[in-house]
């Protein structure tokens, strides 16, 4: 299966989904003109990927989100729901939600998501502070 690599734009994140390493990452800001359209290929890739996993495979997902607009937040919940369903079916899934403690909205968003997810492991991970 091909990897999915999408470079960041000003209003959309970097996406690096590595099928072989089973390592998925989304980093950056997300407020594209049409979130549903932007994430369509991402969902298509994820569904194929999850459908082809060996039983009891493990997947690591790193989300380092700096900003989600409201429609991207909804899309992100759908993305996490798909992973949660796979976890319920036996895939071992760890989602690391990286947050800057100075950006409270990102931490709160991660806390909100964690309440909605049941089968996957959802970890809130503080990003190291840049020295200024």
């Amino acid at each position, binding site marked *: 299966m091909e990897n999915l690599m999408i470079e960041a734009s000003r*209003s959309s994140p970097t996406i690096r989904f590595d099928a072989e390493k089973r390592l998925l990452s989304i980093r950056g800001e997300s407020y594209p003109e049409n*979130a549903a359209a932007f994430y369509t290929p991402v969902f298509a890739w994820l569904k194929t990927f999850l459908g082809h996993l060996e039983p009891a495979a493990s997947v690591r997902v790193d989300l380092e989100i700096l*900003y989600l*607009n409201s*429609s991207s*937040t909804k899309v992100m919940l759908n993305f996490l729901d798909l992973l949660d369903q796979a976890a319920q079916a036996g895939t071992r899934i760890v989602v690391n939600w990286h947050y800057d403690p*100075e950006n409270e*909205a990102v931490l709160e968003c991660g806390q909100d998501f964690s309440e909605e997810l049941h089968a996957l492991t959802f970890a809130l991970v503080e990003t190291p502070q840049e020295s200024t």
Partner: protein
Amino acid sequence: MNHLDLVRLQEELSAQGILMSFSGPFSHSIIEELGVAVKHYLESAQVARSALMDVFAIYIEQAQNVRNYIGRWEQDPEQARLSRSGIVVVAREGERYVVSSGNLVDRADIPPLVAHLERVRALDKAGLKVLYWQQMRQPLNDRGGAGLGLIEMARKATVPLEYALSAVDEQYAFFSLRVVI
């Protein structure tokens, strides 16, 4: 427009505490550019990261709401007035930041908009969170909208959302929204 008009316009903007404003046909790239400008301005003013991101988020939600609404009529030359009617403003009032926006609305769209705003205005932070998660579980509409924008803004705002409707003619009114952070 002569130079004196520009001076007066700048004085007016400055008197109202306006840091940034855009009025005219919105494009996604204009929204992005102004968003970067808003962030840079707040960074240079040494606004704390969380407050900066709240102002940015509320700016993006309002600008995208305006664009999504007036963008429906972009291809219709008869409705050019509506598609050019958007404005978004970031201002400072004392210690607070205020993001406002406005656009013409078709009168037929007013009752559901007002009903939604009044429902949001009536809720406290806990109630807003419940409504937010109810809406989160609804699908995106065909324009990619989530129906979450006003609820999200109300969750971040320090006072209830304020709005006004002014009569324009038989078909349109001008809707304006004011969010204090």
